[in-house]
């Protein structure tokens, strides 16, 4: 096992940042800690690195209890949200830093350091900038140097704290794919923190969804996305339409639309519930194809690249429903604002109403 976290708890005065968190990460795995800001994910990462101490719990890295070790003995690579490159040092000196501070007997020779730094900079495609200063690089370039610097000390574990959040959208996406590729090459056990569900879904082998200092769910991106265990996870993983309804005789009614309640809620007495539908799981057609179809009017059309967003006022629904359809369908159906359409809710998820968004 690469990383074992056992019952980690951390409080800041009277605020609980982490509440009894246990988590295992296999060697070579790339795990995303996903959650809204303030959920404790960064604190957890800092605790693993030794930059914070937990109030309770154990951190075991590669079978070794490192809970009370200082950061320099943990052998953990850390990549910061704002790069934290040493501004007075060149790119070369930045990457070489971790090797140059080693005690004399462990320190590689000058030429070995040179070689290792050059190799790492090549790996992150920054070898051309070896003599530059951080201020002469763009955000994406800085973060790649920061990654090379963290890898220089051969860390057992690589921790990345919102590594792409300070970059603009296009660079972010590019760097994300590049990191995935790099990880497939070097296989270092990695945890990255993000509040961006797209990033987590695309990049991670496994996603751990955290909320208010607790783990809500963990699993592969597919599992978490397709089978969210509760309303929070479902809601956090993408855009949603929320309907408040009541469960009655094992059914939830949404206007003219009736959905089976999930098994665990079927036998409860009449109770409040929340139903969720993702915008892209809504069908639009000009012909009524099923009796359960809703009738709606297009109130607003948003062009979102390959997808078209529709804002629909549906009969029997208080709030408008958001739908996303492929551009092709939009063109073929010759839709426009004000048009009447039939709306089918293809995939409805129902959760008990014990949770607030």
């Amino acid at each position: 096992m690469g990383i074992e976290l056992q019952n980690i708890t951390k409080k800041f005065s009277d605020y609980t940042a982490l509440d009894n968190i246990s988590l295992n990460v296999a060697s070579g795995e790339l795990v995303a800690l996903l959650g809204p800001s303030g959920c404790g994910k960064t604190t957890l990462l800092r605790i693993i690195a030794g930059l914070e101490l937990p109030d309770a719990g154990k951190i075991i890295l590669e079978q070794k209890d490192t809970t009370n070790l200082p950061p320099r003995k943990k052998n953990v690579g850390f990549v910061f949200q704002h790069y934290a490159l040493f501004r007075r040092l060149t790119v070369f000196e930045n990457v070489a830093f971790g090797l140059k501070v080693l005690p004399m007997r462990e320190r590689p020779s000058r030429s070995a350091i040179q070689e290792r730094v050059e190799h790492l900079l090549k790996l992150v495609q920054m070898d051309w900038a070896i003599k530059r200063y951080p201020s002469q690089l763009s955000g994406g370039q800085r973060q790649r140097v920061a990654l090379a610097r963290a890898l220089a000390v051969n860390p057992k574990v690589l921790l990345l704290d919102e590594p792409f959040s300070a970059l603009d959208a296009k660079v972010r996406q590019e760097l994300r794919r590049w990191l995935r590729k790099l990880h497939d090459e070097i296989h270092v056990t990695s945890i990255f923190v993000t509040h961006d569900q797209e990033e987590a879904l695309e990049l991670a082998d496994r996603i751990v969804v955290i909320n208010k200092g607790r783990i809500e769910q963990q699993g592969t991106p597919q599992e978490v996305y397709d089978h969210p265990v509760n309303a929070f996870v479902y809601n956090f993983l993408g855009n949603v339409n929320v309907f408040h309804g009541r469960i009655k005789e094992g059914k939830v009614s949404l206007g003219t639309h009736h959905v089976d309640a999930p098994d665990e809620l079927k036998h409860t007495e009449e109770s409040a519930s929340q139903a969720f539908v993702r915008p892209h799981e809504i069908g639009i057609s000009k012909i009524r194809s099923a009796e359960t179809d809703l009738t709606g009017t297009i109130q607003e059309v948003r062009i979102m690249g390959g997808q078209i967003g529709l804002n629909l006022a549906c009969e029997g629904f208080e709030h408008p429903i958001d739908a996303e359809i492929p551009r092709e369908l939009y063109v073929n159906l010759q839709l426009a604002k004000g048009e009447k359409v039939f709306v089918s809710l293809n995939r409805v998820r129902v959760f008990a109403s014990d949770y607030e968004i």
Partner: protein
Amino acid sequence: MLKPQPPESTLIVKKRISDPLPVQIVLIGLTLLFFIGFIFLPLGLVFAQAFSKGWEYYLEAIREPYAIESVKLTLTTVAIVVPLNAFFGVTAAWAITKFNFRGKATLKTLLDLPFAVSPVIAGLIFVLLVGSRTPFGSWLGEQGIKIIFSTPGIVIATLFVTFPFVARELIPLMEAQGRDEEEAALTLGARGWQIFGKITLPNIRWGLLYGMILCSARSIGEFGAVSVVSGHIRGQTNTIPLHVEILYSEYNFAASFAVASILVFLALLTVGVKVTLEKQFQKNSFHH
């Protein structure tokens, strides 16, 4: 293609953005007047008085043994005070900006105390603390250590008065830089002294130097606190400002101003170093 004309209103606004000419003239004039009245004129008078009895008298006055002793004492004091206060200042700034602890805000406020307290009071505090009539002072006396009316007392008083300069220069700088780089160094396996030497110190070096320059300027010129603890023993406990004052009170104006001109030269030297460093600083801030 025709460029669109800016609407008339923006033209009017543009004219009004800079102050009208008379206001500019008045403000620049007032500033100049102040400079002339409070800096150039007094400086000129210092030199006029210093040379009032001719070159030879001037040279004699500054070569006189007591004058040379006072310069030595002042420079010795600066040589001890500035490194010590650089050390204390870095320590205080480090503690305040890198750690969280109770009473941090109070400590930050207390740092300004030496500026707020009159230097004479500061001097008196040390007389009351380690003067020969206090238990601690008499004990020290028995050990053969004399603080008041000797060099250690002058150094301590100057240390107190000039303590805030370095810390005040560094705290905002270190607060702005944050802890990220230090934390990065920590995760890369660096020890405390390595982090300080390789990361923190290079990041604050200009601020530190600047603080040290201000600290030396004040150390050279300090009168009040030093006057109380020194005892004015000629050739032993007289710093340059004290020597100037003694000569002046003896109506030896030419000699007094001649020695004062040494202070002026030292002040010009520090200002010169400061300007050079500021230029360097601007060049280097590229790598910020």
